[in-house]
C-alpha cells in the first residue's frame, strides 16, 4: 500500500530524501461530526512544518491519529517513507510527540516522569533522561516534583519527553504554550538544531508569528481538509498585498493602470464616503511600483500601505469574508 505522488505543485516543496510524513484521504468521524474530511498532507524530511488551522479544524485530531491515540475511519498514512497503520505501534519508536498539553504524574519528579516514559515504547537508556533534561534547561530542577513545576516548565518537560528517543520525526502540539520569551527562543534554536541534523519537526500551532519565524513549510487546514500547503516563503509572497487609497472618481482609471502589473486586484469602500481602497495582490516590495503606475496615470493615492504576514494569508484562506484591513477587527465567529 503506497501513496500516490504528492499533489503539490512541482518545486513547491523540496523533498530530496522523501517525506517524513504523508497522509492521503484521512477521515475521522466523531459521531455525526467529521473532524478530518479526506486530509492529504505531505511533510518533507528535514524541515520544520507548521500545521495551522482555526479551532476545530482537525489539528489535534490529526496528531491523535498519527500517534495512535485514536483510529482513523479511512485513509492512508506513511511514516518516514513506509506505510503506517495504527496497529504498527513499534513504528512510533522513531517519532517523538507532545500531543495537547503535557501531562505528568505530579507526585513524581520531572526526572522520574521521564524514567516512566523511557521505559514505555521504544526503550532508551537512563543517561538519555539526563541529556534531554539538560537540553530543555531542567537539569537543576529535574528532582523536583512535577506538580511544583510552572506551566512553562511542564511544557519544557513535555518537549524533553518528546525528544527522549532521539526521534526522526517530532510532532509538537502548541510547543510554545506557556514558555517565557527566553524559553521560546531556546525552543526555536533547539528545533532548528534538530532540523540541521536531518530530523523533521511538525508543529501544530495557533501562534502564527511563531510559526512564521520557525517553519520552512506550512500546511493550512480548515474543516478537516488541507486548503493550502507550500513553502512559507512562497505563501508569504502570494499573501503579500499593496493597498492604495483613491477617490471613487479615480477608480476606473486606477484599476486600468494597475492592470498593467498583472496582479489580481479588488476594491473595498473606505471611509470617509467617496474614497475606495484597492488591494493589489503583490509582494510589499513592489509598493513603489504601484505608486509609480498610479502616478503615471495621473492618479495620486492619498495612502499606500503594504504587508505580508502569515496571519493575513491564514485569515484570507480560512475565512469566507474578504481579508480584513489592519484596522478592522474580526469576530470569533468569522474565523471559520
Amino acid at each position, binding site marked *: 500500500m503506497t501513496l500516490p505522488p504528492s499533489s503539490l505543485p512541482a518545486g513547491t516543496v523540496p523533498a530530496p530524501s522523501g517525506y517524513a510524513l504523508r497522509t492521503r484521504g484521512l477521515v475521522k468521524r466523531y459521531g455525526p461530526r467529521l473532524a478530518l474530511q479526506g486530509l492529504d498532507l505531505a511533510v518533507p524530511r528535514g524541515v520544520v512544518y507548521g500545521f495551522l488551522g482555526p479551532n476545530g479544524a482537525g489539528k489535534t485530531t490529526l496528531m491523535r491519529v498519527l500517534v495512535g491515540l485514536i483510529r482513523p475511519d479511512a485513509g492512508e498514512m506513511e511514516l518516514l517513507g513506509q506505510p503506517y497503520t495504527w496497529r504498527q505501534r513499534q513504528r512510533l519508536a522513531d517519532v517523538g510527540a507532545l500531543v495537547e498539553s503535557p501531562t505528568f504524574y505530579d507526585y513524581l519528579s520531572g526526572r*522520574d516522569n521521564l524514567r516512566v516514559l523511557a521505559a514505555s515504547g521504544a526503550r532508551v537508556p537512563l543517561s538519555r533522561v539526563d541529556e534531554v533534561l539538560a537540553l530543555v534547561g531542567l537539569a537543576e530542577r529535574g528532582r523536583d516534583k512535577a506538580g511544583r513545576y510552572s506551566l512553562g516548565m511542564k511544557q519544557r518537560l513535555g518537549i524533553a519527553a518528546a525528544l527522549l528517543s532521539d526521534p526522526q520525526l517530532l510532532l509538537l502540539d502548541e510547543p510554545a504554550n506557556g514558555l517565557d520569551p527566553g524559553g521560546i527562543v531556546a525552543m526555536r534554536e533547539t528545533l532548528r538544531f534538530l532540523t540541521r541534523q536531518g530530523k523533521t519537526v511538525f508543529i501544530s500551532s495557533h501562534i502564527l508569528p511563531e510559526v512564521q519565524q520557525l517553519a520552512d513549510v506550512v500546511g493550512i487546514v480548515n474543516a478537516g481538509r488541507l486548503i493550502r500547503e507550500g513553502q512559507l516563503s512562497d505563501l508569504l509572497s502570494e499573501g503579500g498585498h499593496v493597498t492604495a487609497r483613491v477617490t471613487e472618481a479615480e477608480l476606473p482609471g486606477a484599476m486600468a493602470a494597475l492592470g498593467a502589473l498583472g496582479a489580481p486586484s479588488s476594491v473595498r469602500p473606505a471611509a470617509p464616503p467617496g474614497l475606495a481602497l484597492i488591494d493589489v495582490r503583490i509582494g510589499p516590495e513592489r509598493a513603489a511600483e504601484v505608486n509609480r503606475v498610479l502616478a503615471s496615470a495621473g492618479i495620486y493615492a492619498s495612502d499606500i500601505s503594504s504587508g505580508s504576514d502569515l496571519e493575513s494569508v491564514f485569515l484570507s484562506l480560512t475565512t469566507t469574508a474578504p481579508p480584513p484591513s489592519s484596522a478592522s477587527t474580526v469576530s470569533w465567529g468569522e474565523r471559520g
Partner: protein
Amino acid sequence: MALLHVALLKLVRRPATWIVFAILAGLIALVFISLGATAGSMESLGDEFQVRVLLDFPTAYTIVAGFVLAFGGLLGVAYGAAIIGADWAWGTIRAIVARGESRVRYSLVTFLAITIVIGVGVTFASVVGIGSAIAAAEMAGLGSDGAADPDTLASLPELLVRTWLGVTQAAAIGFAIAMLFKSQLAGIAAGLAFYFAEQFLQLVPGLREILVYFPFSVSGALIATTEEFETSSAFGTFPVMDPDTAVIWSIGYLAVALTIASIAAWRAQITQ
C-alpha cells in the same frame, strides 16, 4: 521488566498507596483493640463468648485474615480503579501510548504491579492484625499461647496467599470498571457500588444460593472454614462456597476482569 519497574515506582511513590495501607492496618488494629478492651465488660455471656471466640488463638488467625479480606477487598476495588483510572483522568496514558507502548501490555503490567503492592499491603495488614489480636487477647485475659500452634503456623502462608488472591480479585474488578469507563471516579464509584450491592443482596434469602457465585462472595469464601455461615440474628444462615472451588472461581473472575480491561484498553479512543 523496565515497564514493571517503573509501574512499581509509580505505586510506591504514590501517596494513595500508603494511605490505603494505613487505613487497612488502622481499621484492623482498631477492631481488635476495641474487642480486647471491651471483652471483659460485655452485658451478656453470649456476647462475651463471641468476642472470646474472635480473639482465641489459633482461630484468631483466620479472623484476622477475614478482616483483611473484607476491608482489603473494599479498599482493593477502590485502589485498582484509582490507579488505572488516574492515567485516564490525568491524561498520562496519552504520553505512554504516543510512545508506541502497547496498550494491553501497559494495562497488564500496571495490574501486575498493583498485585505486587497488594501482596505487600496484605502482608503488612496481616502482621498488624495478628499483633493487634495478640494484644487484644492479652487485654481480654485470654492469653495468646495458641498463636504458636505449629499446625496453624504452617498453614499461615496459604492463608496469606488466599487473602492476597481475594483482595487482588477485588482490585481487578475496580481496575476493569475504571478501564471500561476510562474514568477514575466512575471506576471507584461503580466498583464500590458493585461491592455493596452484592452485600445488600445477601439479605434477600432467595438470592443467597446464587450470590455464592458472585465475585465478592467468592473472594470471601477463599478462607472459609465452614460450609455455611450462621448468624445469631434473624438473617439466618448464608451458604458459603468450598474454599478450593472458590480459588478456581476467583482466578476465573480475575481472568475475566483483566480480559475486559485489556479489550477496553485496546479499543479505547484516547481523547482525554
